[in-house]
């Protein structure tokens, strides 16, 4: 999923301080799962805004809504009226949803309440970890299913640097596993250790973010 964290309250409040009518719009998919922008987070942020406004003597109407996904245009229909009503929409979706909301309602100011972080998985309740860097050309098959680009701090393709110690990465030994230790262990388990002896050539980064804004077209699905 795309993981995100809510921005500090002060930053959000500054962005929307001149909105007299504010819609806080949650998203029901990834950011609900990673507890950053689901219905509960919307309610919590709305409470904080109301309390802060009251304290500061500001008058502002706040509406709350959460739609299934902000990355699909259709779901916005349900809240079209609220969006029309609002001076500003505070999107609690990832950067994708927040932008898409603005595209769906051109002329409406949409501001993000979240910082979008990475493609991640739930390690355990309350902990999300990065697993994919979206390089556009998946190399997992060569590395036993462990991505050297996302999981090595330096995205090394040919083995661990000298900072691998006791399975941990020197960049943050308390929290980070050495991605290459994981690759090594997995390849060993799979009996494929010898494959790591091949020198990996330079990677084509143009398939991912370095190739400009991405676009996928499924010809069979388009008309």
């Amino acid at each position, binding site marked *: 999923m795309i993981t995100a964290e809510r921005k500090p309250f002060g930053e959000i409040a500054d962005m929307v301080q001149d909105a007299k009518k504010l819609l806080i719009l949650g998203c029901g998919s990834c950011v609900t799962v990673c507890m950053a922008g689901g219905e509960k987070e919307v309610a919590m942020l709305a409470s904080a805004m109301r309390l802060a406004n009251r304290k500061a003597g500001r008058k502002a109407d706040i509406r709350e809504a959460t739609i299934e996904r902000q990355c699909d245009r259709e779901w916005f229909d349900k809240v079209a009226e609220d969006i029309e009503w609002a001076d500003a929409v505070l999107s609690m979706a990832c950067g994708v949803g927040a932008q898409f909301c603005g595209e769906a309602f051109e002329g409406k100011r949409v501001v993000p309440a979240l910082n979008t972080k990475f493609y991640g998985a739930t390690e355990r309740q309350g902990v999300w970890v990065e697993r994919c860097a979206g390089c556009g050309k998946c190399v997992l098959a060569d590395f036993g299913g462990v991505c050297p680009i996302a999981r090595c701090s*330096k995205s090394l393709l040919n083995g*661990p640097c*000298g*900072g*691998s110690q006791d399975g941990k990465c020197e960049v943050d030994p308390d929290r980070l596993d050495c991605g290459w230790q994981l690759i090594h*262990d997995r390849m060993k388990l799979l009996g494929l250790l010898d494959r*790591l002896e091949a020198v990996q050539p*330079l990677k084509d980064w143009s398939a991912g973010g370095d190739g400009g804004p991405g676009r996928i077209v499924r010809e069979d699905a388009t008309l």
Partner: protein
Amino acid sequence: MNALKSGSRLEQVLAAGQFAVTAELGPPKSADVEVIKTKAASLKSVVDAVNITDNQTAIVRMSSIAAGALAMKEGLEPVIQITCRDRNRIAIQSDVLGACALGLRNILCLTGDHQVFGNHPTSRNVYDMDSIQLLAMLKGMRDGKKFACGDDIRNGKNAPVVEPRIFIGAAANPFGDPFEFRVVRLAKKAAAGADFVQTQCIYDMERFERWMKQVRDRGLHEKVKILAGVTPLKSLGMAKHMRDNVAGLTVPDFCIERLEKAADKAAEGIAICVEQIQKLREIPGVAGVHIMAIEWEAKVPEIVNRAGLAPRPQV
């Protein structure tokens, strides 16, 4: 190795089967040329070549090529370090051409310390490639006479091919994990194009010897010249810091104990270093020693002398 690849002094010493000695020179954190002059003065004629570090530990310093050119003027032979952290394949190839044009003949390929350790931790890193890919790229430039993209190294269709003639080095860390992969890394570096390697500083002799055995078992010492790294311990504090805070380094207890007992910690540190060099010379496959006297360049002559490595051979 009959025909020399670069003709550098370091290459010649190693080719002649002499026990090579290299040292390290950290460029200044300013545009101050005097720093290079002072450090060079103590290293001149004492060692065969001197590594010029590339923004080591991700702290901004004078560029290694510029500092290397200045050091050369002072009579040293530089080994230019290049890391993958700050430049992409375009910039690095451009730098290599430039270095070569300035007469610099040795280039050492490194992945580079992560920027979080340095003074610009919020910067963006590059890591367009890793050190092994860098080695392969440089070998391709020298031997294949082509850029990484496949184009010939020439100024135009009819212009001559002028490839960089360089002696290519790499680093090796026998102390990182996973231990059994360490020798594989060396093999990959040799395969990618390393002519020589310098190791991380060695205190844990037992682990180094185990690693060297693996190296010899694979015959790697015959493909690539191995210079064992040493760092004299300046003080007890430094020894403890190296033991506790530097990933990929083990400082054995006996070193700490010796320093604890010694009245003159610095002298004891030098003594330990000299003993280590003598032990390293005994290990088959070790072709030289790389003395990394961190901000202590002045002590290198004493170490080289006491280790019986002076004077350096003329080539």
